[in-house]
């Protein structure tokens, strides 16, 4: 379990959440490919979501608006989108 605490350096926002996502990516990709997941600190929100907006609303309901949370779409490898 990873927790933010005294003496633990936090490099940038949502780094812990990104690590938790990477730790679970392979497992989640087998059963929830293409869905969105929501993570705040070491807690994964209940449910996987078809749309980003649904994931955001679930994050707000479960975690509130006080602190940011991570929303990630689950793929086996990270897709890279072309943006001009």
């Amino acid at each position: 379990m990873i927790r933010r605490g005294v003496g633990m350096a936090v490099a940038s926002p949502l780094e812990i959440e990104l690590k938790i996502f990477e730790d679970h990516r392979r497992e989640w990709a087998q059963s929830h490919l293409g869905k969105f997941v929501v993570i705040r600190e070491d807690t994964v929100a209940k449910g996987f979501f078809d749309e980003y907006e649904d994931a955001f609303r679930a994050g707000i309901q479960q975690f509130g608006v006080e602190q940011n949370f991570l929303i990630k779409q689950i793929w086996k490898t990270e897709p890279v989108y072309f943006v001009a």
Partner: protein
Amino acid sequence: MAIYEFPWNPFDPGDPGPCIKFSVARYADDIEYGKSIGLEYLEPPIPTALIDTGSPFTIISKVLAKNCHLFLTNPRFPIRTLNGDCETEEYCGSISFPGSGLPRIPAVQILARDFYKEASYSCIIGRNILKRWDVRFDGQGRTVTIKV
């Protein structure tokens, strides 16, 4: 149904593309809650957005994302540009289109990028918003019509 029609002349070399006024803010319900408990919010700016069917996502300038206190949902969203691969920030925000009659989108995925200083727009409306609209261009009439 909301219908918004505006002129666009793609044959004018100085024309940046089909543009629409927009306003971006933090998640709408969050603001309404804040107002209900007495908080005051500055009216957001109303800059110009370019409608771009080539962009998979809606993108705003980093300055605007910071100033509007959007909700960060991924600090390292990977993208590919003409200059190579890099990471950018992904936010959730509420987007409205003042003066158009188009309905507000209360929560949508928004990427933040640096825009050229001389760009005449500070937002690109990408396919994650366009998928909600019926957008048509009349080449003879030189008008764009958006139906929602």
